[in-house]
């Protein structure tokens, strides 16, 4: 009998890592698999990004698939590095059956509040699909206008492959949008912080005031704005 082929330590470790990642991805599909086993064919995941930032729209994505998305590194968009996120978004768009993006504008966020605007963005993503999924997984929200069966999963973006995929597609799309906004309004640094409340952003807000893309009713925009108004008033008094 011949000896079993020996693996080098490096190759062995690589094999172990691959198996571990494979098992993780299988676990990440537990909700999708449960739905598939109940007979649903098209499984969708929907998620939104940009609820927290002080500026820019809220962006949602929906990813629909009829088979597991075995993409290395697929995870909640917050846990994936930006470069890998861009690459993963491309892989998701290529391997998912359908995907679509929806957004709600700053004006809509101000009119109907951020929670409803994020649902509106998700509804738009669903409406933009060529075909609705039979079963929808969401990150802890119920989309009332969706007629099929849905399951809100708490921390869905970390527990469901399709929701994680949707969060990555939405995140990459929104980041690209804010890089574009940065060209029109370079003074805020949108390209770096993507509208989130970093010290740099808050400082720019109190220096330049808000632009059309800022969510004016957000408390921290208000705070920065009152500082801005205070500074302007002080400057006017000094000049007078």
């Amino acid at each position, binding site marked *: 009998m011949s000896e079993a082929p020996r693996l080098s330590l490096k190759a062995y470790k690589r094999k172990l890592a691959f198996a571990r990642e494979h098992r993780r991805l299988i676990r990440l599909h537990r909700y999708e698999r449960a739905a598939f086993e109940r007979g649903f064919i098209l499984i969708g995941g929907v998620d939104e990004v940009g609820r927290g930032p002080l500026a820019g729209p809220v962006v949602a994505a929906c990813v629909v698939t009829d088979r597991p998305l075995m993409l290395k590194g697929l995870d909640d968009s917050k846990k994936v590095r930006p470069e890998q996120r861009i690459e993963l978004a491309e892989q998701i768009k290529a391997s998912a059956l359908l995907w679509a993006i929806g957004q709600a504008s700053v004006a809509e966020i101000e009119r109907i509040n951020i929670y409803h605007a994020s649902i509106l963005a998700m*509804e738009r993503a669903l409406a*933009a699909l060529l075909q609705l999924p039979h079963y929808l997984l969401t990150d802890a929200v119920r989309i009332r206008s969706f007629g099929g069966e849905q399951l809100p999963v708490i921390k869905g973006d970390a527990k469901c492959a399709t929701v994680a995929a949707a969060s990555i597609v939405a995140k990459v799309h929104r980041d690209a949008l804010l890089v574009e906004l940065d060209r029109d309004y370079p003074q805020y640094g949108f390209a770096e912080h993507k509208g989130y409340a970093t010290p740099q952003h808050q400082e720019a807000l109190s220096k330049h005031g808000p632009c059309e893309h800022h969510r004016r009713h957000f408390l921290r925009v208000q705070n920065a704005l009152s500082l801005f108004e205070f500074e302007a008033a002080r400057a006017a008094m000094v000049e007078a």
Partner: protein
Amino acid sequence: MSSGAGRAGEADAAAYLETLGYRILKRNLRGPGGEIDLIAHDGDTLVFVEVKLRRGTRFGSALAAVDSRKRARIRALAEDFLQFLPPATKVRFDVVTLRQGRAILHRGAFS
């Protein structure tokens, strides 16, 4: 649609389409046997838009509300309209559903 709420809804829908880059050409094209709510340009495509006001309904029913009779009417009217345009014009039929002032676009809802 000719009620006050319908008109306001059409204005909301038109405003939303404009944010998406549509250019509104005509509102309420009336013809024999029907009306087209909005006609717009989306890039190089001419889009006929039906605006549907809905109250707390689901996707399925929102789109189903544009039934085959209504679709046929819109198609017939669109054909009349197209006679005045170059024959190669690209055409699409969209539906905008409005629920509590929230517009959702269904691109290419029927053909």
